[in-house]
């Protein structure tokens, strides 16, 4: 052993990665069974409900994708799964926005947590694009009209030739594959960041202040 590292693993990318993960994200942080006592507000529930709704969005979306884009127009069961998808998206966005505002007023980027905030904002932006492509992929009147209207904004930015909202195949592919993968990956990163850094302390909180030391029992 040399400095706690086995000589045989020196120079090993795998071992170095494992050591970094063990140091920066130990199991106690990844799956905690204790939290600071100030983590007790309903505001903390917004984030976890957002994740739960995302899970239902993905699961209902998998069923819809498995049966194809026209199924839900023709089948009562399909319509039911589309309803689950529709409402889980609504719940997802409601709680994501509540989570965003809650974290803003908690100034949750403090003490090295700016990357966590930024990943969250990017996830929010990509989620809007994912929902937008979903509305375009509905294959009904709303999808037609949204495509007709949205084309002008997309074309105005010069990307209409590459991101063609009138092309159902392109929008459907983005909606059921690429954008969900991006969102799930970003949400995973967001959670890992939260677990690595821990929950942001209250504004004005000083861990070693006399007040806090008195609270240690």
């Amino acid at each position, binding site marked *: 052993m040399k400095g706690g590292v086995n000589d045989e693993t020196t120079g090993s990318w795998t071992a170095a990665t494992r050591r970094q993960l063990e140091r920066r994200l130990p199991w106690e942080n990844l799956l905690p069974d204790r939290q600071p006592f100030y983590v007790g507000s309903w505001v903390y529930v917004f984030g976890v409900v957002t994740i739960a709704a995302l899970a*239902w969005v993905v699961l209902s979306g998998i069923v819809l994708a498995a049966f194809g884009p026209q199924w839900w127009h023709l089948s009562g069961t399909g319509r039911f799964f589309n309803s689950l998808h529709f409402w889980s998206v609504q719940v997802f966005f409601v709680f994501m926005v509540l989570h965003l505002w809650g974290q803003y007023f908690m100034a949750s980027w403090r003490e090295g947590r700016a990357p966590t905030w930024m990943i969250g904002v990017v996830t929010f*932006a990509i989620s809007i694009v994912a929902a937008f492509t979903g509305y375009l992929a509905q294959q009904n009147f709303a999808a037609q009209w949204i495509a007709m209207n949205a084309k002008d904004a997309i074309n105005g930015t010069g990307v209409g030739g590459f991101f063609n909202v009138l092309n159902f195949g392109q929008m459907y592919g983005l909606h059921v594959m690429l954008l969900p993968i991006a969102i799930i990956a970003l949400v995973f990163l967001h959670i890992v960041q939260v677990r690595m850094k821990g929950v942001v302390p209250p504004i004005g909180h000083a861990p070693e202040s*006399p*007040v806090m030391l008195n609270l240690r029992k």
Partner: protein
Amino acid sequence: MISQRAGQTAEQGVRTVRYDLLKELAIAMIVSLILILGLSVLLSSPDVPSVTIQSWAQADPVDLVTTANDELAGQSATALYGPPYNHGTDAVQSIGPISPQTWGGVHGRVDPPNDFVINPLKQAASNDAQLSADISAWQAASADQQSKWHDAYATALKDAKVTDGKVTVADGDYGPMPNMMGHLLSLAQTGALDGLLLSSDHFYQTDYSKPLLFMNDGGYVPALADGQHLTGDQWGMMNETGLYPGQTWLWLYTLWYQIPPFNQVSYTDLLVVLMMVLLTTLLLLVPFIPGLRDIPRLVPIYRLIWRGYYTETEASAR
């Protein structure tokens, strides 16, 4: 949820309490599922059927013929649009020298006179010598003559009558227009035009650019959208058909379309998109922007969120 119990051990300088991450997630999953199931069972989801060129031609044949007349003469919104569809200029948005739409260039060229009218009619003209001759007459005519036929027919269409689905206008010098448009209307009413605008050299199709652009040039679809409160001046992009919530998260994007100076310039879309890019960037960089990052400290909402903490610490300080 947090299970708070007195006498917990201290970690990282802070008193901690019991917490079960996975139980919290499981409860959130169950509660959200109950909510989503309840909404789905009670309210279902919106699904107003799509409009086809066939349904348009059957419901409002005069509008379809009027639109096709403009397409043939190269005077429709799509024909004059500009990038990425063609080299027109009517829909090109720029702020001074900044014109990303022009920079983006033309992709997937759309040629309304040929794509929407001539080529579909040629399909139908294979066994119709008169139609074939009319198409040739149109193509052989000078631009000035084509324009005169178009204008005269467009004027006559304002007083057109519909009998058994056929459009008739007062006698006049319209050249080959009535016969050509009559055949195009028949193609549309049978549903053939839906397929002809979608087909290309490939068997499988997913690109609906041409039929959607053709329908968007008419007045029928926008009128339906207006009835469903979906147009731009009705905050359309964030609305959904019926009484269902739509993309309410687009409220800020849609807001700019309702207010000056955004709704008073010719480059509204570009200005709105640039504004949203700016605002999203500001949101992304909040942690680093003095003022924006200080608002939470000035607005005592955080004292409500952590009221237990502040009550406890302030009582302890006294």
